[in-house]
Every structure is written in C-alpha cells, then in structure tokens.
C-alpha cells in the first residue's frame, strides 16, 4: 500500500515538474535548432561547391580586359544559375563586370543586376585590400578559398537581395590584390536552390523531427522581416518555433521552422495530457489492485474465522451424539431400567443418535471430497418421486415425533431424471433437517416435488425463524452460519447448505431460497430434465 502511494505521488510530482520547466518544449526547441543548423551548413556547402569550379576557371589580371570579359561570359554561359560575375584588380584599377548572357532580354533581371553591380562597383575598390586579406586568412586557417556576403538593398522602392561569393583567382601572387566575384541569381535561389535545400533537410532520414501527422515545415525570410521570402511546400503560416540567422552564407536572411498544423505548445500539452491519462490509468489499476488484495485478504480472514468456528461446532456436534449413545448404553448396561417401554425408548434414542452421527460424518466426508476436488457423482436414470418418497418415509417418524405436522406433495408427471441417488437424498435430508432445527412454535414441514420449465423442482418449506434478507446470499457459502456466533442455540456445522448447492450445481441445476424472518423459509432445488444441461454445467 505504502510503496504504491509513494509511486503515485512521485509520478504526479514528476508530471508537475515537467509542466513547470517545460522540458518537453525545450527538447523540441533543441531539435528544431539542430535542424536549422544542419540547413545552414548544407546551404553553405551547396553554394561553396557551386562557386569552387568557377574559381578554378577564373581569369587574372595577366590576361587583359578582353580575355577576362570573354572568360567571364563563358563561365556565365556554362553556369546559368549565376546572374553576374565581377573581376577587380587593384594594381591596374581594372573592374570588369559581366551579366548572364542568356537573360539579356529580361528587363527585370537586367535592372536588378545592374543595380547590384553599381553598388558593388562603389565599394569594391575601397574594400578590396581588406577583402583580399580576409580571403587569404580564410585560405590559411580553414583552407576555404571562397567567402560569401549578402544583404538587402532598396532600388525603385523594391527590396532586392544581393549575394556574392568571392575569392582570389588562381595564379595571383601574394602581393597583388585581385578578386573574383559571382552572384547567384535571385530567381534561382527562390525557385530552386532554397526549395531543394529545404526539401532535402526536411525529408532527410536523420531528421529528428519527422512525424506522420504533423511534418515540420520551413521557410526563409529577410532577417529583419517576419514574412516568408521562400517557404517549403507545407508551410502554413503562423509563428515559427525556432529561427536562425545565416552567418556564413546568405547573410541578412534567416531560417525558420515549425510543425505543419500544430505548435510545440500543443504537442507538449498533448504529451502532458497523454501522460496524465496514463498516470490516471495506472493509479486506477493500482487502486484496483489494492482493493482486490484487501478484499481477498479480508475474505481469507473471514474464511479462517469461519473455519475455526467450524472446528468448534463440529467437535461439539460429534461429541453430543457420542455422549448420548454412551450415556444410554451405560444406563442399559447397569440395568437401571424397570419399564419395558423405557428399553424401547433407549434403543430408539441410541439408533437416532447413531443416524445423526452418520449423517454428520457423511456431510464432512462429502465436503472434504468436494474441497479436494475428488467428489464423484454416479448419475443414473432415477424415479425421483420414488426416491423422495422413500427418503421421507424413513424420516417421517422422527419428524412427527418432534411434533411437526408434515405434508408431502408429489405430482404424478415427474419424468425420470439422471441424478446421483445418494446425493439427492442427502440434499433433501439436509433441507429437512434445517427445517427441523430452525423451527420454533409453528412446527410445519412441507415437501413438494413438481415439474416446471424443463426442470424438476424439489421444495422444502417450513414456518420457522426464517433468514434475514442480508444473510440469504451467504447461507450457501461453506462454514457460514446465521446469526451471532456467540449465541448459537441450534446445532450445525455450517456445511449442509453448501453441500446442497454443490450437489444441485453438479446436476446442472441450482438451489434458491425465499424467506421472511419469523414467517419461515422455502428452499427449492431445481434439477434439469435434459441431461445435456448437466454436461454443459460440468464443462463450464
């Protein structure tokens, strides 16, 4: 009991604790941040891998302007995903710019490319030494000869995203400041580069966020604006759960991620709810277990008490007839009787007490066989009317001698029934004996045998002390005896009715009682006529 309560208390505390610190949410946030980091890494790798081959083809200042322009045009033609390429040489103050030749006829493209090139032309000559130094440093430290820069610019009331991958072209001596630049096309970024990237990240097998019902969705937005610039197919708006600003590539853009159709708060509250339900179910189970254990223990204790009462009762029940037989036999032996009828009375009493003892011992033996599961019945087709009549005949004298009026109704249409003769006779005797024992002033016993609803019913009725409604269920339990055990004034072992019930059930029937205290009781044994009912009962 105590450990169970402790466990329950701990679980509740744990649940509260989770709720308070938002551990679930934090864990999901961590996973989101992790995925975003992977996304940025991938985009850097992807961009880097695109720029690297271009760097190896790039011209340097030794080749003269015309050759440089031709080379840049060739590069752009081969790589349509770039919008323009720039070359700058500090020494000769040579600035060469070429736009994607394939898109000369796209005015929008040309306009924004020219704007971007104009802006680049304004800062590159000033920043070139510093920029070249940065590239050289990166080459030394990381062996990564390409760096990126990017940002937003406003032209004609339009925000345009510009980006540059820059490097020192091959074959440039260390004391020269020469730089190459290429820019990924904005249309390419929005329509191909980022959508592919996001799909890759979201569908990756390592994606910790994968789940069927609410797959994660991503979008890329300007760092200073919350509206999506590019979004994955399943982006459904709403507040992102985690965000990350690009640092190494595509500066001034931010990645954002969330679950499609739900929020982390929802998930965590669902998790909590689920846990609460599990906890409640477990607690219920535990309480049920405790209750069952308690019930079993108290049942066992009641049974133990009943057993010890039983032993006391039975010893008394065995000793009384024995003492009587001995008393009467000794009196006879001592020749203390004078009248002839006294002899008869004495013999009769000795016989009756022997019978009582036999009946009691038979009950106990039957009972112990039943308890050990060794009780076997011999079912034979039997004339029940004849069986009941003979059984009662041998008992009639005793019943009437005790001052009882006795009625016997046996209807004429009783079919032969498959029963164990001895068991049925014993049940009848047990019921009649009970009627004898539990009658006070109204001394009446009625026995009827009749056919009803596919069964034969054997009824024993008295006008005795009756049984309280609360006790009517229990009287068929073994060892159970009515009333206060301290004031038993009738004899009994507490076995009779439990045997009657067992016998009736073994025959596929049952025994029931109707009783009103101080008015009398009626016990009815119902035995099925159809033997298959019994077979069913035996199987069950």
């Amino acid at each position: 009991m105590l450990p169970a309560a402790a466990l329950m208390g701990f679980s509740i505390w744990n649940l509260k604790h989770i709720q308070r610190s938002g551990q679930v949410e934090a864990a999901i946030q961590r996973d989101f941040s992790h995925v975003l980091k992977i996304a940025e890494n991938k985009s850097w790798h992807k961009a880097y891998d695109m720029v690297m081959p271009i760097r190896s083809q790039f011209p340097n200042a030794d080749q003269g302007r015309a050759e440089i322009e031709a080379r840049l045009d060739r590069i752009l033609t081969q790589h349509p995903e770039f919008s323009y390429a720039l070359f700058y040489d500090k020494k000769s103050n040579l600035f060469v710019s070429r736009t994607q030749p394939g898109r000369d006829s796209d005015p929008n493209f040309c306009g924004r490319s020219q704007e971007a090139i104009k802006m680049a032309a304004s800062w590159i000559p000033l920043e070139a030494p510093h920029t070249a130094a940065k590239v050289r440093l990166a080459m030394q430290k990381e062996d990564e000869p390409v760096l990126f820069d990017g940002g937003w610019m406003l032209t004609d009331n339009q925000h345009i995203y510009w980006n540059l991958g820059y490097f020192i072209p091959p074959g440039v001596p260390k004391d020269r400041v020469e730089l190459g630049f290429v820019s990924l096309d904005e249309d390419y970024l929005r329509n191909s580069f980022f959508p592919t990237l996001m799909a890759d990240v979201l569908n990756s097998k390592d994606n910790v966020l994968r789940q069927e019902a609410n797959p994660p969705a991503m979008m890329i937005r300007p760092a200073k604006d919350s509206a999506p610039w590019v979004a994955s197919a399943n982006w459904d708006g709403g507040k992102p759960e985690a965000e990350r600003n690009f640092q190494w590539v595509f500066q001034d853009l931010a990645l954002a991620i969330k679950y499609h159709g739900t929020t982390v708060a929802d998930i965590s509250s669902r998790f909590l709810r689920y846990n609460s339900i599990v906890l409640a179910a477990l607690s219920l189970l535990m309480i049920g277990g405790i209750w069952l254990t308690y019930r079993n223990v108290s049942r066992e204790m009641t049974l133990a008490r009943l057993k010890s009462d039983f032993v006391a009762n039975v010893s008394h029940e065995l000793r009384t007839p024995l003492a009587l037989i001995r008393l009467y036999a000794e009196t006879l032996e001592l020749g203390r009787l004078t009248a002839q009828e006294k002899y008869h009375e004495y013999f009769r009493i000795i016989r009756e007490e022997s019978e009582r003892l036999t009946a009691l011992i038979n009950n106990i033996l039957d009972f112990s066989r039943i308890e050990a599961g060794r009780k076997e019945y011999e079912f034979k087709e039997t004339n029940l009317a004849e069986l009941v009549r003979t059984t009662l005949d041998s008992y009639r004298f005793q019943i009437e001698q005790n001052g009882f009026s006795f009625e016997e109704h046996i209807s004429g249409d009783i079919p032969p029934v498959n029963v164990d003769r001895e068991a049925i006779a014993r049940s009848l005797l047990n019921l009649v004996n009970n009627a004898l024992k539990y009658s006070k002033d109204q001394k009446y016993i009625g026995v009827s045998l009749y056919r009803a609803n596919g069964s034969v019913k054997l009824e024993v009725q008295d006008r005795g002390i009756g049984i309280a409604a609360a006790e009517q269920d229990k009287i068929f339990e073994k060892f159970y005896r009515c009333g206060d055990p301290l004031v038993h004034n009738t004899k009994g072992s507490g076995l009779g009715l439990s045997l009657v019930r067992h016998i009736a059930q073994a025959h596929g029937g049952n025994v029931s009682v109707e009783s009103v205290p101080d008015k009398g009781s009626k016990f009815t044994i119902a035995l099925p006529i159809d033997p298959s009912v019994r077979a069913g009962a035996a199987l069950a």
Partner: protein
Amino acid sequence: MSVTKILIVEDEPNMVAGLRDNFEYEGFQVTTALDGVDGLERALKDSPLFDKDETQLAGDNNLDPNGTFTFGVKIKLKRPLNL
C-alpha cells in the same frame, strides 16, 4: 431424611432425559431447565442456599438491541459459606 435436589441445565432433551433417569435412580429429586435463563430462575427459586425473600435482581439490568441480557443478582445466603 430430606431428598437432595439436583438441577440439570442442558439444551439437548435426550441428554436431560438420560441424566434424569440416572439421577432419579440414584435417589435425587431432579428439576430440569433447557436454557440458561430458565436454569437461573429455577436455581434462585429452589436453591437451599439462597434466602429467596432476600434475593433480588440488582444493579444495571439491561437488554441491549442484540438480544443480550446483562444483569446482576444480589443474593443472601442462609448460612455462611464454608470455603
């Protein structure tokens, strides 16, 4: 010589009958009672030891709802007990 009285309190009628036969054979005058209350009444009424007129129920006599009757008896002996 006066007849010695004996009171048999026993709830088994056959036992009472058998004992009565034997005690009567031995020369006792036998009275019988089938339960304790009856037995106590007869003992108080017939006992040679108690002064019937001075014997009374005393103290808190009470019948509780379970049917248990608790009572005290104040008796006066006809002669001191020789214990």
